[in-house]
């Protein structure tokens, strides 16, 4: 009985992953975030970064883009494929201008690639997500690529 329900789960997971594959290269719905001073401060406090460059919350450190829209992104991903666990495999960011308090940042995520492998934890999906960040003047301020492992 147990084995059978496990088989069914695997079949379900595969069909969800197929669904995700069909979305490779397709941009998700853009989402907008207004950047407040407290968001920047909360971020630098979380990192434990005491640099005077960002202490007044006027300018964010480059890695702040990791926090913009991440929660929504994970929710969107999990609604496509309800993975048991997701692990971050890697991150790449490119920053073209600093993000400042008062900026309104529009994020667009898409799946850049996906491959599957049998791992210790069963079927694992190795996914690459690409995201872009534009400000209220439609200037590209940053790009990000994340490698995520779901199983």
């Amino acid at each position, binding site marked *: 009985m147990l084995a059978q329900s496990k088989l069914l789960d695997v079949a379900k997971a595969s069909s969800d992953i197929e669904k995700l594959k069909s979305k490779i290269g397709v941009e998700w719905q853009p989402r907008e975030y207004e950047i407040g001073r407290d968001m920047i401060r909360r971020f630098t406090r979380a990192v434990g970064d005491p640099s005077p460059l960002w202490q007044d919350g006027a300018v964010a450190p480059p890695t702040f883009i990791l*926090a913009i829209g991440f929660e929504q992104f994970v929710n969107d991903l999990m609604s496509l494929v309800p993975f048991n*666990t997701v692990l971050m495999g*890697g991150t790449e960011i490119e920053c073209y201008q600093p993000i400042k308090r008062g900026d309104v940042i529009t994020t667009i995520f898409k799946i850049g690639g996906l491959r599957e492998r049998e791992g210790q934890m069963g079927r694992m999906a190795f996914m690459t997500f690409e995201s872009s960040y534009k400000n209220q003047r439609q200037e590209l301020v940053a790009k990000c690529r994340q490698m995520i492992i779901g199983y």
Partner: protein
Amino acid sequence: MSKQLHYEDVTVGGEITPLVKQPTTMQLVVWAGASGDYNPIHYDKDFAQSRGLAGVIVPGQLIGAFLGQMMTDWIGGKGVLRKLSCSYKGMSYPGEAVTCKGKVTKKYVQNSEHFVECSLWAENPKGEKIASGKAMVILPSRG
């Protein structure tokens, strides 16, 4: 603030000033709130263990942010961190130090901008690499 680093101060093979971080479980909770990464493997021990982990793990992206902090500390207010990449190679647990290190791999001038490329990594207390990556920065020049 420390003195501004210039392109002329940097030599290929030279070290980036290391940064030692001591992540705690509490920091992981603060990070969850600040980053929007609510994956329970970073704050719920039972959940983490049910997913085959030894305990809660430090989020890869927080280690990425530590490497970013090392770089922005090093390049100073007039330096620009253009690119940062890292891949997460091993698990890091709260209570263990994370030591960020790096080396200059390349320096060059392009379109009158002064670029420096570095290789970066983060180590656990056993000296094992838990993350490694690269950075590209633009520094001011004295020239």
